[in-house]
């Protein structure tokens, strides 16, 4: 290792005297551990909340419900209120000037704008 890396203590030492089990022993080299952990979704499924009494609060049922107010539509580009939707790109836009801009956007940007409000087409 380079001296300035060592000096800055950038890298975690492989052995820590205060640990009972060292990382190297726990996660041996070369072993795939890509699926060692579960995502939150899987975690919650494993919790089996449905079997618990419904009046008891848990992680899932404290989640906020949808708003009472109808969701407002805003222009994806400018942020102003958007009365229109471009049928081709599905982007919302505020006025004709923005529309011109919308039509000139590269597809990648269109998808990124849509992804911002979770409306992008995702190919799997």
């Amino acid at each position: 290792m380079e001296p300035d890396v060592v000096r800055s203590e950038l890298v975690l030492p492989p052995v820590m005297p205060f640990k009972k089990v060292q990382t190297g022993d726990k996660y041996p080299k070369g072993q795939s551990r890509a699926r060692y952990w579960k995502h939150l979704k899987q975690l919650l499924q494993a919790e089996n909340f449905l079997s618990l009494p419904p009046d008891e609060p848990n992680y899932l049922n404290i989640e906020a419900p949808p708003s009472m107010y109808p969701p407002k539509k805003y222009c994806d580009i400018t942020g102003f209120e958007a009365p229109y939707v471009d049928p081709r790109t599905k982007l919302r836009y505020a006025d004709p000037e923005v529309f011109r801009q919308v039509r000139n956007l590269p597809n990648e940007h269109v998808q990124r704008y849509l992804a911002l409000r979770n409306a992008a087409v995702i190919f799997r």
Partner: protein
Amino acid sequence: MAEARIARQTDYDLFSPTTPIVIDNGGSTFRIGWAGESDPRIMFRNVALRPRHRSTGETVTVVGEHDPALFKYFDCTRSSWRSPFDNNVVYQFEIMEYVLDYGFDQLGASSSMAGKVDHPILMTECILNPVSSRAKMAELLFETYGAPSVAFGVDAAFSYKYNQNLGICAEDGIALSVGYMTSHSIPFLKGEPLPEGSCRTNVGGYHVTNYLKELLSLKYPYHASSITWEKSEELKREHCYVAPDYASELQIFKKGTKESEEKKRVWQLPWIPPPQEEPPSEEELARKAAIREKQGQRLREMAAAKRSQKITDLENELHVLETLLSQLEQAEQPEVASSILARSGYLSRQEIESAHFRVSQSLRKARGEPTGTVEDNADNVTSADKYPLVSIPDEMLTPDQLKEKKRQLFLKTTSEGRLRAKQKRSEEEMMRERQNQLEEERRLENPELYLEELRAKYKELSEKMDQRKRLKTNGNGNGNGNNVSGGTGRGERLNAAQRERMRLLTTALYDKGKGEDTFGLKDEDWQLYKLMSKDTDDDDDVVDPDEAELERVATKLQEFDPSFVERTEARLMQSAQEPPRPRTLTAEDYQVVLGVERFRCPEVLFQPGMVGEYQVGLDEMVSHSLRRLPNLDSSVKDHMCQSIFLTGGGSLLPGLEQRLETGIRATRPYLSPLKIVRAVDSVMDAWRGASVYAASEMFSTQIFSLQDYNEKGEDWLRRYNIVYSLYD
């Protein structure tokens, strides 16, 4: 969210094993310190990276933020910064372990001889943390670090309690915690949080920053590399605010009034003005002009040489043809004549004559003289002498003479016709002469104006010609080589004439057998074949009046205008010159302007639908929390609403209280009391509250050991909740 604070502590051994270690395991920042102290010892971003060392090739672990310059020794392409969190729940315990390793190490644990972290640990978690995550965390702390005992508590509750002790908020109230990935509203009754009344929305500071980052990098794609996560965080903290009324704030910006201009903020990216280019000196200019002049001169010379070359070529050809003609004239025997013809390569005398005519015409054209057929001026003899039989009546003639008369009649009419044509031509010539004279006069009168006119005319004509040429050659004016062969390849466009021809061919093909075939009844029908023939567009031998005029104007210009360069050559010259330079970038091009974004991004907290989370916003969460507590008296709820407590890093946005007040008021009964307070330090209070809590005497009643955990099992851990009002 707060600044990182990393410096290895040296006083670890001074703390007795009973002093708890307090960890605020926040979504964005990890804070670790000693119970009873007012500030955490170590704080860093709760992320880890596992890059490969470039020279040794081993995979190493880096936790928290560091000097980016140091990463040049590592190959970070195959890994990215990872957080142990999914939403607000720890799920990647490997990453968590690295983070904890780093935290304990920096706290000085490595210097102890205990071989384990021999202190009780109080750690924060989200409210109603799923038990599997909680169990895994406990396991990690017990088995890997050898902690004697552990306690878990909610960060927002610690913050609330801390501020309650300071008198900021009351016993009953609602904590509104704007976290990193999530926001919670947690009602408090008699100093204890009510999980059943809690409400969580999956938006937080992360979403605000990410929204800002994405919007700015989409608005300024060429600065995308400068708009980093850290920079966006900084911009958010510096410039973002919550609009008191989103719609009207938008209106202000939409109208673009002076007020909106004042509200805009500019972030100037590092920009070095380009070295000022000195205006070229006199000398330089003169040199350049000289070069240009020289080039122009050369081109003009080239043009003149080309022209004279053409003229001499044509003259030579004419001469050859003339000698050929005279030879034929002199040849008495047909054999000699035919041998001459065979040598010349022409088929007949007529052909030679027509060639002669063509050459002489083009010679005239090249010289810039008006085109006109050279007429044999041997027509001086009167028609009576030439055609003696014409005037004699038929009866007086022998059959032979009659035949002769017919011939003479024919000759006479044709020659008369020719004469008329000649007269007309000469008249035209006269006209032209007169025109020339007039022009000459005008030129002498005002040479500049005349030249100007000529130039304009030349330009117009040459453009016209260009246009025509472009139409003819397939539309792609400069000819990209496709049309050189004359044929039209697949996928190439046909010009108008070719299209018409194709249309004729196809209609001819498909009209076959349709109804009665009347083709050929009319004479025009045969015209079709001419149109269909491939070389209808070869009109090279027809002299175009525009072309002739162009030629004439060009010669005139060549004569009088020293700076005149023919168009085709001018184009050559232009391409040789340097291409047009792009506009030099100014400081304004390196500015990122924050207008609507300043309040559009924080609005995500109030309208999570803007980032695709169709949940209630911060203001509505309070009423939802209260609705989830149906057993509570409305007077208690009123009481709670007098102590709405804002905490969490995301709550630092200015204008949040005002907006919340209007929002919450809308959901509450008319004239019901409402008071919103802010935490003393929204970011640090959770850790501080936990520190005070862990330092209290009763803390030991809230902890559990590995043995407890093993004995009581998972279901107990699910229901495990600490009592917060220990030290009131």
